[in-house]
């Protein structure tokens, strides 16, 4: 599944552009989405990116599937929140706000060491199920031990009642956002560099063949353990940042949904690539918070999108781009770029049709008066008439049909034709 | 009889078999020789349908090319792959059971008892997971597993790999026995001595084609051919 290896066997493209493009994007995006909500969303993306990168240290690099990574994110957040509240209570004196995330990281590391000590002995399903159990236990505890966790109401703090190292006013969302960006960059670079160290290499080695790793002198359990603890540390850092942007923390931050989301995001982006989880996490954050404001059917779309990525792009979104890029570079697009475009277009048409069908179904089943006219893609339709259904289904069938049964075979023929021609 | 006509096979874009023609009659052992990597194992896989074959393969008049592997097996072809492919999680007995086409049903010539008699070690290890068997034991298991399905034709890919000299002789005897029972035996073998010893006919493959066909005696007397196609 994950083909990248320690050296990130990928091409130069993947090696360098992220370090230019991502910081640039981080600076440009807030100019475009300059509303408070937009900035918060961007901050959340930054946090999700750190969290996903830390998660991929486990899943992508070490081959450990965790269902409970939010435990470290959440516990980091809680501890950071307690420190922030101490600072608040001290009248805004004490640890500067910029360093609060470090507290989260320390807490993540601490709990990573404790829980890691007994959960990494085995990989595979055993590890996955231990993390599932631990996740459930910690989540339940967060409601039981309300002294520390503040019950289901959670804990609140105020980032503006804390000193700043650089005298920045964090009342402004934008300033907070830049703090997130700074930390995200630090975290991303550290995690990236970690992959290049002996530990990072051996994490890959242990993922691929723990037995052989033993016979070159490494104890797989210790490799996993260190990776696990470090990954928990970065998760804690993300949690600490969350405390700063949202000024609230509650049980959901240690919960199973949080753990699930990071898995989804990392995978959608592509766990075989360093930037994969970043892309995935950012995308999931955006979809989660904005899709729901456009359509009632957002969960369905989310589920379908997700299923299609798993089925048709097992290497994730970055994987698609990367393989296409490689093909293109190797000249595999020559003479068939048109067909490829045609397939994409047909696919889009199919998706358009499918969206119409889904939207109409929701209107039909959910609205109190299904026959009431409603706006669909710029048209006003009546969902109780057969015609719009026929048209929508038609578009969907034609679009997907052309893509799969016309474009695809054509592309396959063109490719095999050209390669044979090359040989002859 | 197994008949292979103009068989081609590809791994992705690499064209490995380039129009192979050969046949194996019932009652004979045919050895397929060739250098490493010429495509002998690929031939077996293509016949089994494990690789999409391009060309024509038939057995006893039934066309095999284009069938799924399980249908090929049901047409009477048994397969002993070169990497043994035992099922590690399953016990010896379960491995053998999976060889049977119907639950608990073997052919008349090769029954479970017979196997255990030939190779008592397997009986002793009946309930141990196959992955802990010794290399040689796994090889024997793989071969007997194929026999459990009562095949009419067997493709045996490097059966003597990793076997002690004494057992190699046993294997040779088993192959002979199978041919005597009326099976068609296609033997892919590295060790020239054995191949020449038990084969009725010999094919040599080179560069994805059959480049030589003859009897063992012919080959023994033909050092040029051996030099050209079998040595580096």
């Amino acid at each position, binding site marked *: 599944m994950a083909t990248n290896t320690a050296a990130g066997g990928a091409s130069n493209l993947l090696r360098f552009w992220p370090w230019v493009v991502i910081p640039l994007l981080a600076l440009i995006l807030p100019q475009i989405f300059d509303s408070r909500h937009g900035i918060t969303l961007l901050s959340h993306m930054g946090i999700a990116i750190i969290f996903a990168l830390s998660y991929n240290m486990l899943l992508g690099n070490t081959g450990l599937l965790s269902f409970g990574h939010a435990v470290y994110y959440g516990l980091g957040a809680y501890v950071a929140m307690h420190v922030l509240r101490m600072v608040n209570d001290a009248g805004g004196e004490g640890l500067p706000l910029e360093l609060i995330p470090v507290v989260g990281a320390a807490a993540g590391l601490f709990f990573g060491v404790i829980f890691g000590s007994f959960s990494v002995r085995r990989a595979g*399903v055993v590890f996955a199920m231990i993390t599932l*159990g631990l996740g*459930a236990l910690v989540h339940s505890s967060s409601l039981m031990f309300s002294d520390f966790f503040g019950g289901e109401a959670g804990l609140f703090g105020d980032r503006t009642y804390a000193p700043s190292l650089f005298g920045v006013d964090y009342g402004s969302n934008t300033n907070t956002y830049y703090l997130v960006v700074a930390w995200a960059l630090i975290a991303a670079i550290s995690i990236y560099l970690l992959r290049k160290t002996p530990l990072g290499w051996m994490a890959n080695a242990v993922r691929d063949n723990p037995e052989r790793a033993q016979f070159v002198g490494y104890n797989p359990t210790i490799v996993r353990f260190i990776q696990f603890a470090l990954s928990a540390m970065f998760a804690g850092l993300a949690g600490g940042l969350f405390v700063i942007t949202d000024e609230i923390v509650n049980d959901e931050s240690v919960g199973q949904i949080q753990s699930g989301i990071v898995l989804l995001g990392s995978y959608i982006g592509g766990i075989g690539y360093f930037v994969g989880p970043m892309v995935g996490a950012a995308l999931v954050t955006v979809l989660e918070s904005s899709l729901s404001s456009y359509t009632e059917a957002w*969960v369905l779309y989310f589920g379908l999108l997700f*299923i299609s990525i*798993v089925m048709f792009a097992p290497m994730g979104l970055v994987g698609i781009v990367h393989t296409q890029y490689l093909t293109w570079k190797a000249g595999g697009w020559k003479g068939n770029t048109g067909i490829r475009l045609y397939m994409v277009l047909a696919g889009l048409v199919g998706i358009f049709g499918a969206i119409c069908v889904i939207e109409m179904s929701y209107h039909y089943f*959910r609205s109190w008066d299904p026959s009431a006219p409603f706006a669909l893609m710029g048209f006003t339709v009546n969902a109780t008439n057969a015609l719009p259904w026929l048209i929508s289904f038609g578009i969907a069938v034609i679009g997907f049909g052309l893509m799969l049964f016309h474009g695809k075979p054509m592309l396959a023929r063109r490719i095999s034709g050209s390669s044979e021609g090359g040989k002859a | 009889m197994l008949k292979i006509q103009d068989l081609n096979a590809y791994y992705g874009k690499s064209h490995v078999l380039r129009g192979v023609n050969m046949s194996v009659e019932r009652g004979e052992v045919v050895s397929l020789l060739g250098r490493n990597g010429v495509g002998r194992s690929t031939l077996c896989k293509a016949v089994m349908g494990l690789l999409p074959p391009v060309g024509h393969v038939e057995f006893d008049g039934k066309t095999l090319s284009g069938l799924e592997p*399980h249908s090929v097996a049901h047409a009477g072809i048994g397969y002993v792959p070169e990497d043994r492919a035992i099922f590690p999680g399953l016990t010896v007995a379960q491995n053998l059971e999976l060889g049977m086409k119907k*639950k608990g049903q073997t052919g008349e010539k090769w029954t479970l008892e017979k196997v255990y008699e030939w190779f008592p070690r397997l009986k002793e290890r009946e309930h141990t997971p196959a992955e802990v068997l010794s290399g040689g034991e796994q090889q024997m298991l793989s071969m007997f597993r194929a026999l459990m399905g009562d095949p009419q034709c067997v493709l045996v890919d490097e059966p003597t790999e990793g076997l002690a000299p004494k057992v190699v002789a046993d294997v040779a005897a088993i192959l002979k026995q199978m041919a005597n029972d009326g099976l068609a035996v296609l033997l892919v073998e590295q060790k020239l001595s054995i191949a020449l010893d038990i084969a009725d006919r010999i094919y040599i493959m080179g560069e994805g084609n059959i480049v030589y066909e003859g009897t063992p005696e012919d080959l023994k007397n033909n050092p040029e051919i051996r030099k050209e196609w079998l040595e580096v």
Partner: protein
Amino acid sequence: MLETIAYSILNGVLYGTLLFMMSSGLTLIFGMMGVLNFAHASFYMLGAYFAYTVGLATGFWVALLLAPILVGAFGALVERYGLRRVHQYGHVPELLFTFGLAYVIEELVALFWGTVPVPYKAPASLDFTAFSLMGLDYSMFKVFILLVAIVMFVGLWLLLKKTRAGLVIQGALSRPDMVGALGHNVPMVFTFVFAFGCALAGLGGVVGGIHFVTDPGMAFMMGPIVFVVVVLGGLGSVPGALVASLIIGILQTFFLSINFSLAGAIGSLGIEDSGFFGVLWHMETTRIAAVLPYLLLVLTLIFRPRGLFGKREA
């Protein structure tokens, strides 16, 4: 105390059989095929909804038969056109596929049947008090649940003993090509087993939907408990799943039935009900009961990674 124990055993067994019903299909799918089927609970939910809808037309008894078949057929489609494709990429994608599927199924159920619970009730022929014990009534339906669970157990046992599906699948997990070359139609066996597992989940839903509540949240509510049962029992072990269900059922019932906390038993010893240990000291067993399965899960996996009855390690 004796009464409490007797009660715990009786009710624990009842609850345990329900757990077994919900998780037995997963024993097949997860234990044998290695598919971490997060949509298992969704198939369970479909069972309940199908039975409700079919039952409106045909009555309960026909629905009892038909609904699992429908769910099984749906499962077969899912396997054939979804999972099979994903299978080649490995276990994580499989898991994620079912994850997405769970979302989609829940949405579709909410779309077609609405978000409020449907009035899916026990048929009159089962809706009476079968016997009373220690002042509590036990309805015929509970006895019926027990019967259904036994049928499921036997069905599973037959599948495993009388067919080689288990062997074929286990073999195929390591060498699918070779199992095929030995004459087994591997894809078909996979589809069949997956469908069977789904049908079992559906059957669980037919009964569970009545016993609990039939609403789109019912899948979520069942949550990961089914995984706990399967892993605790040992992957692929049907008796293991049964025993694990019973253990969880009885222990949980017992914890809920007694009024115990360390502080209550030993005295508060001046330990305040705050701070980590303080809270633990005063924690009543009833509050722990819900997390008990997870505690068991983690402890079991640490000390006996293959579960109670498992032969191979997960």
